[in-house]
C-alpha cells in the first residue's frame, strides 16, 4: 500500500512539474512570434491576411474538395470524423502559414508519406488545385498572391501523385 501511495505521489509531482515546466516556454514563444517586426517587404503570409484569413481560405478549400463530385469521396472519411478533420485542417493551415512565411510550424508528415498508397492521379491533383483557386477567388485573394501560393504548393505534385 505504501508503495502504491509513493508511486501515485511521484506521478502527480512529475505531472505538475512537466506541465509547469513547459508553460514557461509558452510565454517566450508567443512574445517572439507576435512582437517581432517582419524585416523587409511584407511576406506572402502578411499579404494573405495572417492566420485568420488563411483559416477562412483553408476551410473553404477543404469544403470545396469534400463536396466536389470527382475528389470528394477521397475526403469524405476525413471530413466526417471531427478528430481526423482537426488534424488534417490544422496541418493544412500550418503548411500554408509556414510556407508563406508565417509564424506557424508544420508538424504533419511529409507529402510523400501523407499520400502514400492513395494512388492519386494528375487529374485529381489538378482538380484539387482548382478548388484551392476557387477558395482564394471566393475571398478575393489577388491574382499575384494566388500565383505565389501556387508556386509554393505545385512542386509538391511529384510527392503526391502516383504513390
Amino acid at each position: 500500500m505504501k508503495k502504491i501511495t509513493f508511486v501515485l505521489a511521484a506521478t502527480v509531482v512529475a505531472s505538475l512539474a512537466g506541465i509547469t515546466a513547459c508553460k514557461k516556454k509558452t510565454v517566450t514563444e508567443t512574445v517572439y512570434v507576435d512582437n517581432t517586426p517582419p524585416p523587409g517587404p511584407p511576406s506572402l503570409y502578411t499579404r494573405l491576411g495572417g492566420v485568420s484569413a488563411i483559416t477562412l481560405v483553408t476551410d473553404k478549400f477543404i469544403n470545396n474538395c469534400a463536396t466536389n463530385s470527382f475528389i470528394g469521396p477521397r475526403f469524405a472519411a476525413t471530413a466526417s470524423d471531427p478528430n481526423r478533420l482537426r488534424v488534417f485542417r490544422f496541418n493544412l493551415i500550418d503548411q500554408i502559414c509556414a510556407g508563406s512565411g508565417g509564424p506557424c510550424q508544420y508538424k504533419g508528415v511529409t507529402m510523400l508519406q501523407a499520400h502514400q498508397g492513395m494512388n492519386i492521379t494528375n487529374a485529381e491533383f489538378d482538380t484539387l488545385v482548382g478548388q484551392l483557386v476557387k477558395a482564394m477567388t471566393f475571398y478575393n485573394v489577388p491574382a499575384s498572391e494566388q500565383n505565389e501560393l501556387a508556386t509554393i504548393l505545385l512542386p509538391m505534385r511529384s510527392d503526391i501523385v502516383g504513390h
Partner: protein
Amino acid sequence: MKKSLLKIGKVLLGTTCILFLSLLLWANWNERTYTEKIVGDTRFMSYDISAAPLDDVSSLEKKISLIKGVSSCSINTGTKIAGIIFYTDMLSSDQLQESLTTLLQHPVTEKAIPVKSGGCPVGGITYFMLGLKEALCFRS
C-alpha cells in the same frame, strides 16, 4: 480471502489512477501550436438542399457563411449537397440545421458524401487517441 480481494482492488485502483495520470501528462506535455492557440475547432456536415432554389449558388454560399458560427459553405449544384464547416463552440449541428431550414425556407436533411477507398491509410484508433488527447488537454 477478503484481504486478498481488498489488495487486488487497491492494485486495480492504483493502476487506473496511474494510467489516467499518464494520459493527462501526455495530453498536456506539448505546448499548443500557434494555430491551435488561436484557431477554434470545427466540424463538417453535409446536407441535401435539393428542395431549395439553386440559381445563384455563389450568393447562397455567402449567405450561409454569414450564419453565426459557420466558417464556410460549399454547394455542389450537381449533387445538390451543401457542405458546411462550423465552429463547435458557437453552433451545434441541430442549431445549424434549424438555421439552414429558416434561411432556405425549405427543409434540409443530412446527407453523407460517399467514401472512396484509398483515402488516408492511418487507422481510426490514432484519431481516437488524438481526440482523447485534445479532450484531456487543459493548456490554453
